[in-house]
């Protein structure tokens, strides 16, 4: 069994909307109203054109497995071996996550496999966006 607890994020004023979304079961990205760039991680301006004219948008939750490692050593809150993955969202941005509902093996974890988001509650404030094989 996993020992300890996984490190949890501390939301900041600029990222609070993302964590509020995760708690509500929504994956939230931001989109630039000037150049239409969709981006992550959160910040109150567009990293492509520097505009402050940006809006929060709800992502579809669909993604593909972009790359990963399978960690074989102990880490707080994890039961090795476990995969640390980067997924590419249907909307374009990538994010780090864990893949659940699937064996943590190279055979089961094929690059570009379709995934969908699932939220795992950590406490009353924080839920994490994890991904599982798409049904």
């Amino acid at each position, binding site marked *: 069994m996993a020992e300890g607890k996984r490190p949890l994020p501390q939301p900041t004023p600029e990222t609070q909307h993302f964590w509020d979304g995760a708690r509500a079961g929504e994956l939230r990205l931001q989109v630039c109203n000037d150049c239409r760039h969709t981006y992550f991680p959160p910040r109150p301006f567009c990293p492509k054109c520097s505009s402050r004219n940006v809006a929060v948008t709800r992502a579809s939750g669909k993604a593909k497995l972009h790359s990963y490692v*399978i*960690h074989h050593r102990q880490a707080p809150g994890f039961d090795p071996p476990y995969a640390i993955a980067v997924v590419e969202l249907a909307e374009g941005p990538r994010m780090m996550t864990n893949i659940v509902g699937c064996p943590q093996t*190279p055979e089961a974890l094929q690059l570009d496999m379709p995934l969908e988001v699932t939220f795992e509650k950590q406490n009353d404030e924080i839920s994490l966006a994890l991904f599982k094989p798409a049904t």
Partner: protein
Amino acid sequence: MKPNTIAVVGAAETTDLGVIPGLSQIQLHADAALNAMQDAGLKATDIDGIATAGETPNTIAHYLGITPTWADGTSVGGCSFMLHVRHAAAAINEGLCNTVLITHGESGKSRVAVTPRPPFPGSLTGQFEAPFGVAGPPTQFTIPVLRYMKTYGITEEQIAMVSVVQREWAGRNPRATFKTPITVADVLSSRMIAYPFRILMCCLVTDGGGALILTSAERAQDFPRKPVYIVGTGESVESPLISQMADFTSSRAFRVSGKKAFDESCIKHGDVDHLMIYDAFAHLPLYGLEDLGFCKPGEAAGFIGSRATAPGGKLPLNTNGGGLSYMHSGMYGMYALQESVRQMRGIAAAQVEGAKISVCHGVGGMFAASGTIIFSNEKI
């Protein structure tokens, strides 16, 4: 920077490398600095510029007894020292100081009085990577490689070959930590750390330090050692989050830094006699060879497999044994610079006969930063 205007006149590592429980982090800086000062025939009072990472420049200047008119605390990980060389060259040319000392010291293994690096839960890493079980470089630096392998059809055997060839170089270096030859089978049967990386594809964890002293090429003629000229420099940074690296098959920081250094120097790839590419993990020389332009995308593994970078090959690479076999205290860039300087002085353990141009390429963070220095023992 302007090529050929600045030279290395002092260079040294700590007296010992490896496991040094008797020295704290700050004294590893000082031990290397004193050795470099002796190499250059200087005392602390002769130095008026200080640059360091891991410790602050004020800490090192005070500890050594230096009164600087220029200080640089650029700290972007293991390539910080490449950036220090570049910044120091500009500072000397601008007249901000005359003689710069750059120090590194790290008690990576023994952990005596080290600078803590706590994960800060409100940082971007703390919010968007730490919750998913990352545990330092072996689980972050390594994440892009499966995408690289799939894109170019690279095998685990080919990645393992990087470690095998570097061990061959280490076998020629009495100061290397690991000298016993290894095979691809040895690498692929070694303990799994973070699939697809096994322990023999990961760098060492050791104690040590190094220091460089730079001054103008004009003044360099008056020092005891033959000057090693700086003929090209580059630097760049990308993202503190490995998940946000723009392209998992190529480092933007590598490409920008390398191109800048080559453009400054006006040398061509065929002119390069000796190459150092910071190898915290076995995939880094592959990215480096491609992003610096020595190989086309996807061809570096075949290049290493052809023994082009091995002893006797046309492009000797990581001739000290690298971070995989020589030593790696955490911020390895200083040791890559030291080996380039030794090769240019003609005193390396595995000396490349007649080498005139050495390219030294560093990485910082997890593909987060890069610095490239091109050295020559002649003005070019």
